[in-house]
Structures are given as structure tokens and as C-alpha cells.
């Protein structure tokens, strides 16, 4: 490391004469402070991801470790299962519904709250408090609220709905187009899970949007208000474009949350009938620790990591670049 840094400095010297800063213990301290964290994360994040990637290429699919090379066999095997194909469908459907639901609700509530209302902090607190609860507790609570025999169905029945939905116990998939082994469409059971997830996380989108709205100069918002706060076009053409970076941030963070969703599903439905509420995270956990298919579990884990890397790395780089430019 040091050698390379010196070499680089020498290179720069030949291009343009730069005054080399004298060695400073203070700067060195800053680097030394970071070393233990970098080492820990180097092992626990980067090393372990590489380790998992390596395991995904082995034949370790029983209780006894077998580290012989298997090539991409585990990936092929995973993709060929009904369960993993269902997972991919579920992940796409869940992410779309969850992210859009949180954004729409979050933006709506943020705009309401930004109207100089009374009891602002009370309303804000109410919309954000589910974020303080564990996904597990949310799952248990909503499995009671959406219990088909009782819960909201009692209200729906009282309102005259003779056949209220079976919620997370339903096996219906709409529109149900057969692709590969599975039915493509929106599983109703997954919608029930999404409702609970949106309840939990929409406050996050609201907080992001509210912070974004507060950063918009007061004159612009005042102009919008004078034209009637409800002025639809003015909002979409003037205010909303100003919220672009809030939207990007919210989409990235919520997508990451959706990719990682685990406790909620584990507590609320498990994999569900015909894997209608299964997710790659849950599949990985059960394949590895209940099925002892370590290599296949590692393959699912690696796929999860690659999906995450595909959107979070470009995002982080752009955020840090923007910061450097500022």
C-alpha cells in the first residue's frame, strides 16, 4: 500500500512539481483509526461474500462439507426449481407494489403535512411510528388484522362484501400466465404481506419527502399555495421535479429493504401455500439451515448479493461524486 502511494506521488512529481506535504501524525492517526473497522468489514463483508461465492461453486449439498468444484451446477439447479422461480416473481411483484405504495402514500402524506397544519408533529409521529417496531411484530400483528375469519374481513362483511378476500391464506394468482413452472401474476397472499410492509415503511418515504419539501424555497411553495394548494398541474410541474433526489433516495433504500425482507414474511406467512409469499431470503435460509443444501443456499445468497450490488453500487458512487463536487 505504502509503496504504491509513494510510486504514485513520484509519478505526479514528474508531471507537475507538487510540494509534498510533510508527514503528519494527525493524518496518520485518522488512517490508523479506520484500520480496525476496515479490517473487520474486509473480513465480515467482503471476505465472507467471497467465501459464500466460493461455496456456491462447490458440491456441499449435504450435512457433511464437500468442497469439490461443481461449476455453476447449483445456480442451474436453483433456477430450475418451482420455488426459486416463484421467488423471483414474488420479489418483482412485492418490490413494485411496496416501493410504489410507499412512495405514493409517503408523498401524499408529506404534502398534507406540509400545509402548515396544526398538530403537525403529532400527525408526523403517527405516520412514522411503525418504523420503530420490528418486522417480526408487524408480521404477527397483521396476521391477526388480516386473518380471513376475523379482522378487517368482519368490517368488509358488515359493509356487505359477501366474499371478502382470503388475504395471506389465498392461493389465487392474478392474472396467472404460465411461464416456466410457475404462474406469472400477482399472488393475492403477497398483497396482504405488502399491505403490512407499506404500513411499516411508508413513514420513511414520508419523512424523506417532507425533508425534500422543506428544502424547496418558500416562495415556490407559496406560489403553489396561492394558486390553490390542490392545483394538480402546478404540483407535478413545479414542486415534484424539485423532489427528484428525494425520490431516488427513497427508491434505492426501499428497494434494498424489499430485497432483504425476511422477518415480516417469516412471522406472517412463511413460504405460503405454493410458495405464493416466499422470497429468496427465506428460501436461502431454509435451503441452507433446514435442508443442509449449503452450496445451493450459497448460490441463492450470491444472487441476492449481485442484485443488490447492481443498484446500490452505482447509487453510492453517484452520491459520493456529487458530494465531492459540492
Amino acid at each position, binding site marked *: 500500500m505504502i509503496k504504491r502511494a509513494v510510486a504514485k506521488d513520484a509519478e505526479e512529481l514528474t508531471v507537475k512539481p507538487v510540494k509534498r506535504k510533510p508527514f503528519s*501524525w*494527525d493524518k496518520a*492517526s*485518522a*488512517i490508523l*483509526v479506520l484500520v480496525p*473497522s*476496515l479490517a*473487520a*468489514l474486509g473480513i*465480515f*463483508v467482503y*471476505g*465472507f*461474500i467471497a*467465501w*459464500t461465492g466460493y461455496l456456491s461453486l462447490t458440491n456441499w449439498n449435504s450435512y457433511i462439507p464437500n468442497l469439490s468444484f461443481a461449476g455453476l451446477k447449483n445456480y442451474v439447479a436453483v433456477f430450475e426449481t418451482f420455488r426459486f422461480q416463484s421467488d423471483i416473481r414474488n420479489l418483482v411483484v412485492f418490490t413494485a407494489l411496496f416501493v410504489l405504495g410507499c412512495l405514493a402514500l409517503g408523498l401524499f*402524506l408529506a404534502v*398534507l*403535512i406540509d400545509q402548515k*397544519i396544526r398538530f403537525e408533529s403529532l*400527525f*408526523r*409521529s*403517527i405516520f*412514522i*411510528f*411503525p418504523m*420503530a*417496531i*420490528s418486522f*417480526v*411484530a408487524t*408480521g*404477527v*400483528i397483521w396476521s391477526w*388484522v388480516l386473518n380471513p375469519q*376475523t379482522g378487517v374481513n*368482519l368490517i368488509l362483511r358488515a359493509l356487505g362484501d359477501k366474499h371478502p378476500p382470503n388475504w395471506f391464506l389465498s392461493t389465487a394468482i392474478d392474472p396467472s400466465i404460465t411461464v416456466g413452472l410457475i404462474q406469472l401474476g400477482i399472488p393475492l397472499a403477497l398483497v396482504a404481506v405488502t399491505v403490512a410492509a407499506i404500513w411499516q415503511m411508508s413513514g420513511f418515504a414520508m*419523512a*424523506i419527502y417532507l425533508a425534500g419539501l422543506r428544502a424547496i424555497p418558500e416562495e415556490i411553495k407559496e406560489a403553489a399555495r396561492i394558486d*390553490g394548494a390542490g392545483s394538480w398541474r402546478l404540483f407535478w410541474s413545479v414542486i415534484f421535479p424539485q423532489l427528484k*433526489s428525494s425520490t431516488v*433516495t*427513497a427508491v434505492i*433504500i426501499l428497494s434494498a429493504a424489499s430485497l432483504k425482507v425476511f422477518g415480516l414474511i*417469516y*412471522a406472517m406467512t412463511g413460504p405460503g401455500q405454493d410458495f405464493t409469499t416466499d422470497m429468496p*431470503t427465506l428460501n*436461502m*435460509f431454509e435451503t441452507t439451515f433446514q435442508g443442509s443444501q449449503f452450496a445451493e443456499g450459497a448460490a*441463492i*445468497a450470491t444472487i441476492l*448479493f449481485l442484485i443488490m450490488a447492481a443498484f*446500490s453500487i452505482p447509487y*453510492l458512487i*453517484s*452520491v*459520493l461524486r*456529487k458530494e465531492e463536487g459540492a
Partner: protein
Amino acid sequence: MAVRRLNRSLLYLLLTIFAVLYLMPVYVVAVTSLKSGAAINLSQMWDLPRHISFSSLATAWQKLGPNFMNSVYLTIPATVISSLIGAMNGYALAKWRFKGSNTVFFIILLGMFIPYQAVLIPVLRVLDILHLYGSIPGLILVNVVYGIPITTLIFRNFYAAIPDEMIEAGKIDGAGYWGIFRYIVLPLSASGFVVTGIWQFTQIWNNFLFAVSVTNPPHQPVTVAVVNIAGSQTIQWNVQMASALMASIPTLVVYIFLGKYFVRGLLAGSVKG
């Protein structure tokens, strides 16, 4: 003016409707866990309990109490340690920028996004080698390490708001790296520690994946106990709701009293540019 007043009424009406919707699960949990087992009737789920009974809460505490204490022993040290590490890292990254410090920050931050399944098999293997598998210290270690990215991020953003002039003034007075940290930065860090501490407390208390993978029955945290209680066929809804309520109380209390700082952590943790 009349239109404006109507708009205002509509505004409050909408806000109230949504507030009621968001609080509806709380109502359900409260009324269900205050009913006794005998009074649990599916068709009267929305009704207030006729007689307030604490028997569900007592039963839940009996089953959940030890796990609740496990969570306390886990969360407090893990929160304190990871906040301290975050403060040191954040200070180094915000106030002593060096060549490559942004790269270092990136390497640290990425750890925040990873799905923990991607490291789970090695984590269990390594904890096993260290003889920490199945224990609370093992779970503390895991939560501290994977907490470094977020605590570093929060403190880096927090310290970035301290004017560089103050650091320069410290240097002129002859203070070095640690002197400036000790006498200038640390005294200004109280609210940074509150934000980070609350955030980590909530995250670690609520964590489930590591809790269920790393610990065995006597050492399991409260989140695992809640799932076990809910998964048991013989346990009634009132006890399930009471246990979900109990597991949520510590983080809710923190939120109710220090919600402002919780939201700050929420926003700081969202890596905005």
C-alpha cells in the same frame, strides 16, 4: 375564503382518516391483549374488552421474559460499542480527509446494503471457530461489525456540520488529532450519540435474521421468542398480541420520547447526496 376553509377541513379530515388507519393495528393489539383467553371471540375482535384482564400479558411475560432480558443484554452493549466506533470513524472521515478517504468511506458504506444472507454461512462458521456460536457475545459481535457502516455514516454527516474553523483553531492552539477530538469534537457530540444510539438500539433490538441464526434457545432475543409464540398452534391470539406488544414496548418508548432524534437517524441513514 370559503373555499379555503373547505380545503382546510378536507385536509384535516384526510389526515385524521389516515391517522386512524395507521393506528388501527395498535387498537387491535391493545384490545386483544387486554382480553382473557376465554373472552377471545373471533366475531368480537373489534369490540373493547368487557372486563380488562391482564392474564394475557402475564402469560406472555412468563414465556417471553427471559428472551426480553437477552435482548437487553444484547442491545445495550452492542449499541454502545458500535456508536463509539462510529464516532471515531466519522471524526476521521469528516475532519481529516486524506487521499482515498472517499474510497474508504465507500468501502465502509457498501456494507450497509448487503443482504445478510450473503454472509450468513461464513458468520456461523467463524462464530463456531471462535466458540461464540449460540451465545449473546457472538450476537453482539455480529451486530457491532455490521453496525459499523451506519454508525460511521451518521457520525460522518454529523461531524461534517461542525465548522472546519473550529478544528483549525484547535490546531493553532497546538492540539493534535486526539486533543481536538477530546476537547473540541467530543463535547459537541451529545446529540450525535443520541441519534446513533437510538437508531442502533432500534435496529439491534428489532433484528431477527441474525438473532434466529446465531443463537440457541436459552439465549434467543425477544424477536425470536415472538415468532416462536406466534408459530405455536396451541397459543391463543391474545397471548400472541400481548407478546408482540411487549417486544415492541422498548423501541416504542424510545420513539415516543425521542422521536425527533429517531427521525434524524432515519434521514441521516438514507445516504442523501
